[in-house]
């Protein structure tokens, strides 16, 4: 059995490219995630990559006032479930009435997170490029937020889709799963994030096209890297929506922890009755989100100028 016999014959990988040499099997990646979670030093091959320097640069720290808004839970009566995702398209209401930065448990036990960032000099094309480009190699994900981003993998079919030049960057991730190893302030986890189109998230697309610049989101299942028989595999719905504003992009994040999408595409709470997502996990993800996206807004314009808009480098 060869190292790559799990790759289906209708895919033709080009192993002369690092974007294909990164491909591992599912079982190998799962085993590797334990090592990745130890944040090992870069390999000589990684050191030679043109973006390795971003791994070593000083990470921009979040505004303390922004991070402090995640210290205590917000009023749950001002939060809502993923069935009301279209509230993110009502800009007037968002700006006047909504809690834009905060977290809490909903009355049904789900975890809710809201966050907002402004990125000067960032465009929707940069967002589309980054989210398609970064899952191709561990180091691309690690440079995003080195303290807590440990690694990433795609399946061969998803990798072929990302590298397909006929698919626009904005659509490459639709239906694709990122298998990431990440610490959301509660220890390293393996998180399988299944990305969706905005239509499949439940957005009213007529309104979405008028209001939003671009979107990234889907559903994740997370479980501890060092999982044991009693480990909980936790679902969450993730939504990052971006809006054109003068001089940059506005980014709103929402997480609904404890929710999944059903096969039919409907959001469904799948916590057992009387069980809540632990507050420490909700707050942990909220704080992680502030940190990783502070860094994101700082380095995205620079790396895009250097390496965008191609998937290869």
């Amino acid at each position: 059995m060869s190292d790559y016999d799990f790759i289906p014959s209708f895919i033709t990988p080009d192993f002369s490219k690092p974007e294909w040499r990164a491909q591992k099997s599912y079982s190998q990646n799962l085993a590797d995630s334990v090592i990745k979670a130890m944040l090992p030093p870069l390999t000589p091959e990684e050191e030679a990559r043109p973006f390795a320097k971003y791994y070593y640069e000083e990470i921009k720290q979040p505004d303390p006032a922004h991070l402090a808004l995640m210290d205590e839970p917000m009023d749950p009566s001002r939060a809502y479930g993923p069935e009301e995702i279209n509230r993110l398209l009502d800009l007037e209401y968002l700006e006047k009435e909504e809690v834009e930065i905060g977290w809490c448990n909903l009355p049904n036990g789900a975890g809710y997170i809201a966050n907002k960032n402004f990125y000067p000099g960032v465009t929707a094309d940069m967002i589309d490029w980054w989210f398609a480009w970064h899952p191709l190699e561990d180091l691309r994900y690690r440079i995003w937020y080195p303290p807590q981003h440990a690694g990433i993998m795609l399946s061969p079919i998803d990798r072929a889709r990302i590298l397909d030049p006929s698919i626009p960057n904005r659509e490459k991730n639709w239906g694709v799963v990122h298998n990431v190893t990440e610490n959301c302030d509660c220890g390293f986890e393996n998180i399988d994030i299944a990305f969706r189109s905005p239509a499949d998230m439940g957005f009213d697309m007529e309104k979405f096209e008028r209001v939003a610049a671009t979107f990234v989101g889907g559903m994740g299942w997370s479980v501890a890297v060092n999982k044991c028989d009693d480990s909980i595999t936790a679902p969450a719905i993730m939504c990052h929506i971006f809006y054109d504003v003068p001089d940059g992009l506005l980014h709103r994040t929402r997480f609904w922890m404890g929710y999944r999408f059903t096969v039919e595409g409907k959001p469904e709470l799948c916590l057992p009755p009387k069980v809540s997502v632990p507050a420490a996990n909700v707050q942990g993800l909220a704080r992680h989100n502030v940190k990783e996206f502070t860094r994101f807004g700082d380095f995205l314009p620079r790396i895009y100028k250097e390496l965008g808009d191609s998937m290869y480098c």
Partner: protein
Amino acid sequence: MPMKLMAVSRRRPGLTRADYFRYIEHYHGTVARLERFKIDRYIQNHVIDGAFGVLSDTEHHNRVADRDGVVELHFSEFRDMIATLEPEGVTQSRANKDGKFFADEPNNIIVMAEEIELPVPNPLPKFNPGLGEPGMGAVKVMQFIMRRPEVFPQDFPRLWRRAHDEALAASPYAQEMFRRIVVSLRSRVNDNDAAARAHFRMVDPPVYDMEVSFWLDSMENVGAFRQYLEAIQANPLPFADWSRSFFLYTRPVRIIDDAPPKD
């Protein structure tokens, strides 16, 4: 969203197959009707025959190569399933206590799944009491397919679907005789199966990412499934561990079903 819990069991020591079928249909089935909790539908599939692994295997790779029944419990949503497995205010439900009288419980397998129905070229068009209801048939083949560990879970159903379409296209008898096909995809909620493991008392159960049910008119037609099986197992796409996969010919028995019969 409907969620289905399937439990595959072998009869306990000392029972004949006839004993087992009589007990689960008439006694255990009655217990489930009396203590329905949040069950929407309950179908028992009594095993007529089956095979484990492939002909080229020289020994079995399944820990248990013998199964007698598959129960299917349908729920409106995940929370209803939990509320039934761990009913509030009940230390141990009668159904839970009853399992030891018919099943080899440590060797049970469970799959929590969501169903996707696929089109068939030749569905049973109208009611025929000799063959079955429209969209149904008297025999249901249940194929449990184990994913190769190297294959990503997200690629597994994609590869299966490609292999399935090619196998069906190469199997004219199967095209003619498959009356209905339903794919049950394992849900990740199955990862948190402590309640189900406790209910069914399983020890280290094997994981099946997919079950596919094929309805045929009668046992005389199961050769259609064998034709399809040979074609899908010969497919070079590397998605399944066929040595750990198995299929069962079963007779479905309705225990709880509020839906009116189709005619």
